[in-house]
């Protein structure tokens, strides 16, 4: 068991931004988190590495990494060496004034291994699927395409040999072919090195193809946890089912109007008593507005 978090909460004064998040990642496992704007998924990513700004209060029942318990202040010791993170825009994470070679070197030196750095760098770049590694080492970030930059960023993160990688929308800005390459790469690395990967996306198709388990987030809560291969036919939460039904799949008649989810997501300061999806749910009844549904069977949060 690589990472296990129980009852993670993040709030600012009286507004709850993350509500009772339970998460578990095992070696060699890819956990997909799907959510739209306002679901709290990006905040969750940052919280896992204790990167929140000071005005946010984080609390949890337990945060266990490799069977060892950590307090919130101790989490920062895990950054980089044990838990790494990549983001949507690789260019903002790379130092624009240093070339790939020096950035990789700096990352490797942090591991206190100074022999064979150039050789190891080339190996790492090859593992990333970069064919002309020698030439690539000399390039600067602005000379890299989006896909290349993301690969370099992944290489930089892996140079420190972490066990867990958090990827927050790593391919959203890339076209589908490059997206496929990067995600295939991530999957291969994770399986080969027996790492864990938390893959966050708003695109259900990506999560469905790559994640072993899927977590659906809505309004700061986890509303469903399910084995990914079961998601199309066995999803239980109304939001998950609607997310699936609004994709223009081949089941929907050509040029026919798509189904939509009526209403809009509640902002964090608008949360009411009861289910936060109730204003948009087709199954809504009296009890939905009065009582917050619990996570049933640890799989989905609904009264039905």
């Amino acid at each position, binding site marked *: 068991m690589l990472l296990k978090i129980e009852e993670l909460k993040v709030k600012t004064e009286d507004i709850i931004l993350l509500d009772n998040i339970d998460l578990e990642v095992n070696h060699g496992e890819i956990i997909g988190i799907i959510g*739209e*704007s306002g679901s709290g998924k990006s905040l969750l990513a940052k919280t896992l590495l204790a990167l929140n700004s000071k005005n946010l209060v984080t609390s949890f029942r337990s945060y266990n990494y490799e069977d060892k318990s950590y307090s919130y202040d101790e989490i920062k010791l895990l950054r980089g060496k044990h838990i790494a993170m990549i983001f949507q825009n690789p260019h903002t994470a790379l130092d624009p004034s240093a070339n790939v070679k020096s950035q990789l070197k700096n990352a490797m030196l942090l591991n206190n291994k100074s022999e064979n750095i150039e050789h190891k760098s080339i190996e790492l770049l090859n593992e990333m699927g970069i064919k002309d590694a020698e030439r690539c080492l000399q390039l600067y970030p602005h000379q890299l*395409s*989006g896909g290349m930059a993301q690969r370099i960023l992944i290489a930089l993160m892996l140079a420190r040999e972490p066990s867990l990688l958090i990827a927050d929308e790593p391919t959203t800005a*890339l*076209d*589908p*072919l*490059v997206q*496929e390459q990067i995600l295939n790469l991530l999957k291969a690395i994770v399986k080969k090195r027996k790492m864990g990967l938390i893959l966050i996306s*708003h*695109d*259900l*198709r*990506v999560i*469905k*193809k790559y994640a072993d388990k899927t977590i659906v987030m809505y309004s700061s809560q986890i509303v469903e946890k399910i084995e990914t291969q079961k998601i*199309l036919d066995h999803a239980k939460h109304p939001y998950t089912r*609607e*997310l*699936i039904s*609004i*994709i*223009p*799949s*081949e089941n*929907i008649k*050509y*040029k026919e*109007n*798509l*189904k*939509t*989810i009526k209403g*809009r997501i509640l902002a964090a300061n608008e949360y009411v008593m009861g289910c936060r999806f109730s204003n948009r749910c087709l199954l809504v009844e009296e009890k939905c507005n009065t009582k917050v549904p619990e996570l049933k069977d640890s799989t989905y949060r609904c009264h039905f």
Partner: protein
Amino acid sequence: MKEIIRVKNINNYILNNINLDIEEGSITSIIGKSGGGKSTIAKILSKIEDFKFGLIELKYKNDYFNIAEISNKNFYSYLQIVFQDPYSSLNPQRTIFESLKVPCKNLLNLKKDECREKCTSMLSLVGLNDIVLDMFPSQLSGGQLQRINIARALIPNPKILILDEPLSALDISVQSQIINLLLELNKSQKITMIFISHDLHVVRHLSDYIYVVDTGSIIEHGKMHDIFHNPVKNLTKLMVDNYNSIKI
């Protein structure tokens, strides 16, 4: 002649010999890898970028006119464009009404009170309340802003609407609403649409005709059904295979 836009032999620093024929009332998609030239085609068609060689003609009342000879005012009353990023298309220091007023005055010559009316009716066409008129872009969501951008484009009653990745920056649940809006506009107002996207689910659902672009050239084109079921060129095959592997 059914074509509303005829593009012949366009060449510039990115594009090589681009030839397009856009059928009136159709939804034509342009797909391809990032950096391949799709957006450049959109910018050239909308006179935002120049080209050195070639000819682009628009059909207006049974005659074809070279776009270089059409005045800006007439041109943008006929053809409009919506971009990917809903936020940066609007001046952050001005209210929505102040931004929407501009085409009302410039392209339709409306007076002050008429502007307000027109903006309100355009907003309701895209499903928004006129309460947003006095708000600033930073107060609104991406979905709302993209709808405003579409409303802005529809103000001069264009016959052609170019949409450059209009959905990429939006949540999935918002995308479905915008897709329905576009379908509606195409069916009821018969607006010809040129849709640039790399989301093949959406392209497959909307398009009548598809052009595939790679490194500045059109490598393949055909009816949607043919492209998806019988792709010929490598890139097209790769893209269709990728679609098939993740399709829902």
